[in-house]
């Protein structure tokens, strides 16, 4: 009699905890299952206030656009939910909210590499039938990046492609092919500087660089069905290009530690002849006071086997959540955010590359961003990074093995077959 009374509050707590964990168990099962999310047919005609979710709005692009929308649509106001500026945190934040079937995340901004994963989880509204959008004017690779299993799940919003920066004071005409670039490395040696660098530190940037090397040589990481296809002579040639260049010293030995910023600093202080990097380098290298290459900077498409290489694609897509209650408003907002006017605003205000081909020859834009015509070539030839719902495992497999191969710790053949097996294992599911 005494003991139960004494323990009553504790028991209450215990029961409460058990109840909660029971709920948690159920939740855990559901999250683990991720069984085809919400109802893609519900709320198609819903109109009303919605929320737009995106990472930190560093260059103040989103706020003016949202304000403009809200002024025109007083009954369908958009609330902007700003996430952090860390891509990993943005990803995890979206995952948490979708797993909780949060109807408050109506329109989300997803990195190109997350699109397949979210689509396969059943979280993104297919953009077809009633929800269809017109992608005719958009650059094809950007549309591909929003497509999973033949269905468009996300609308391209902004894009990004690689550029080859070179020293036009030392190299009068930029190299068109990889071999041509390697033959120019004697110029670098004469001037006592490094020849070529990209981003070869073991992180996401290495996946970008390694897939670029493989795609540019005519290979591919995944085939059309999403199965790994690395046991090909083309893939081998691609990865071998990097490994050989590192062994020869054409990629300086510190290149193995380079991420975007370190490689930019090396080039900007005049220590590199060629640099593979994103368009953001252009403005910094031409305007920063400390830049040693201000007037010696040339840009070209990245080199491939026989002509321009296949850049990896960066950028973001816009998607509508299946849990949204106001999908009609969401679709309108999505169209608004990808309209020509908005696309132009991204470019002028945030230096973000547009997805509409026509804007790359727009006079005003080219005056402001002189690299646009070159970037268009780069994006037109670009290949999205491997589109796979298992992207996190795929990118780890590429990083781990490409890193060993470039450093020469592992023969290229072994690295590729390990890569192949790792990706197969990820796809096999557990």
């Amino acid at each position: 009699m005494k003991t139960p009374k004494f323990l009553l509050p504790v028991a209450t707590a215990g029961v409460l905890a058990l109840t909660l964990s029971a709920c948690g168990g159920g939740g855990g099962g559901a999250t683990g299952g991720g069984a085809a999310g919400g109802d893609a047919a519900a709320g198609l005609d819903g109109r009303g206030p919605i929320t737009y979710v995106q990472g930190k709005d560093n260059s103040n692009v989103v706020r003016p656009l949202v304000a403009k929308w809200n002024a025109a649509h007083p009954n369908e106001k958009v609330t902007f939910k700003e996430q952090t500026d860390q891509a990993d945190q943005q990803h995890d934040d979206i995952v948490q909210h979708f797993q909780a079937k949060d109807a408050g995340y109506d329109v989300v901004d997803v990195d190109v590499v997350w699109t397949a994963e979210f689509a396969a989880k059943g979280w993104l509204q297919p953009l077809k039938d009633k929800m269809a959008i017109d992608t005719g004017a958009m650059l094809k690779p950007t549309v591909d990046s929003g497509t999973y299993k033949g269905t468009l799940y996300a609308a391209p919003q902004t894009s990004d492609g690689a550029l080859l920066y070179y020293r036009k004071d030392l190299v009068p005409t930029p190299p068109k092919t990889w071999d041509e670039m390697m033959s120019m490395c004697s110029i670098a040696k004469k001037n006592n500087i490094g020849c070529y660098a990209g981003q070869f530190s073991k992180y996401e940037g290495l996946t970008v660089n390694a897939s670029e090397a493989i795609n540019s040589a005519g290979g591919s990481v995944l085939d059309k069905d999403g199965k790994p296809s690395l046991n090909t002579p083309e893939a081998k040639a691609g990865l071998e290009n990097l490994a050989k260049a590192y062994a020869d010293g054409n990629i300086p030995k510190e290149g193995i530690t380079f991420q975007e910023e370190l490689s930019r600093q090396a080039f900007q202080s005049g220590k590199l002849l060629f640099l593979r990097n994103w368009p953001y380098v252009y403005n910094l290298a031409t305007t920063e006071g400390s830049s040693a290459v201000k007037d010696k900077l040339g840009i070209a498409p990245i080199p491939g086997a026989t002509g321009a290489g296949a850049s990896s694609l960066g950028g973001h897509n816009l998607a509508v959540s299946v849990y949204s209650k106001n999908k009609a408003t969401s679709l309108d907002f999505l169209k608004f955010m990808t309209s020509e006017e908005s696309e132009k605003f991204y470019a002028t205000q945030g230096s973000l590359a547009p997805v509409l081909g026509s804007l790359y020859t727009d006079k005003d834009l080219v005056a402001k961003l002189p690299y646009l015509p070159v970037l268009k070539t780069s994006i037109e030839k670009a290949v999205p990074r491997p589109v796979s719902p298992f992207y996190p495992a795929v990118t780890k497999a590429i990083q781990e093995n490409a890193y060993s191969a470039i450093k020469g710790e592992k023969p290229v053949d072994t690295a590729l077959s390990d890569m192949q097996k790792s990706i197969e294992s990820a796809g096999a599911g557990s």
Partner: protein
Amino acid sequence: MATELGPTPVKAPASGGTPVHHAPKGVGEDNKILSQGKWAAWLLAPTVIALGIVIVYPIISAIVMSFQKDAGLDPATGLFTAGGSAGIQNYVNWLAQQCAAPAGGTVACPPGTLGAQFWSATTTTFFFTVVTVAFETVLGFWMAMIMARTFKGRSLVRAAVLVPWAIPTAVTAKLWFFIFAFEGIANKLFNTSILWTGSEWPAKWAVVIADVWKTTPFMALLILAGLQMIPAEVYEAAKVDGATAWQRFRMITLPLVKPALMVAILFRTLDALRMFDLPYILTGGANNTTTLSILVINQIRQGFNSAAALSTITFIIIFLVAFIFVRFLGANVVEQSGATGKGKK
């Protein structure tokens, strides 16, 4: 019989009387204790509930998840489907480094999968723990000895020593990332051209150096607290008896500071075993600097349920280390209190 019976009835009331006599008082005390206990239990309840929600629930939830399969892909629709129950397969996969095979079943994890990194990550974690804690203990002790002395500007030194500890680890890591860059200060200062984050041993030492720099002050502070508990008279008496400085250190300082030192080492060891942010930012886990915590975070992005199994394994490893330590420490404490008790008697 009668004589035997006699005392019994007499005794009976007496023996029964004692409790009866004491009963009112005893029951009153019991009631008081009970009502106090009840009161205390109700007062404790919110804390227990809070602990239940923030500690018990997540742990149970994680353990439940760890016995579920990760979602697999339905090849027809391309959508994820629930994995179902996995039994202890997730645990077996980690410990035996087995991965799913395309043809079904499991194979040894190929290099490039997270599964292939389990034992190397465990080794790395213990390497970091042993090496950093050893350095931090020695350096921390030395710093504490200096800070314990009386000299001009002592408070300034004490405050200055704390600066590395006060900087958030993520900031520290980024700081050392630039110091250890190829064109960074470390190479400029020593006129070397080492790729600090580009190969295995330099990368490991880079992490150790950054961690020692950051956490030694914490160690020093805990040891300093222990040092200041030692009365000055003990040293004076030893000096009068002609003990040398080394003897004083070995026979007085060390034994008396030991309890504080052991607690400090325990704290640091548990802390080091779950090291995450420093190697994650400094090296990204490249060149064999992936710790168990980094592996867990990477796995979370690939499948929650395997990650839950891995974090449970990590939890058990840390728990075992803590258990061994506390047993070891506890034995010491008992021995000491017993000794002092005897002395007092």
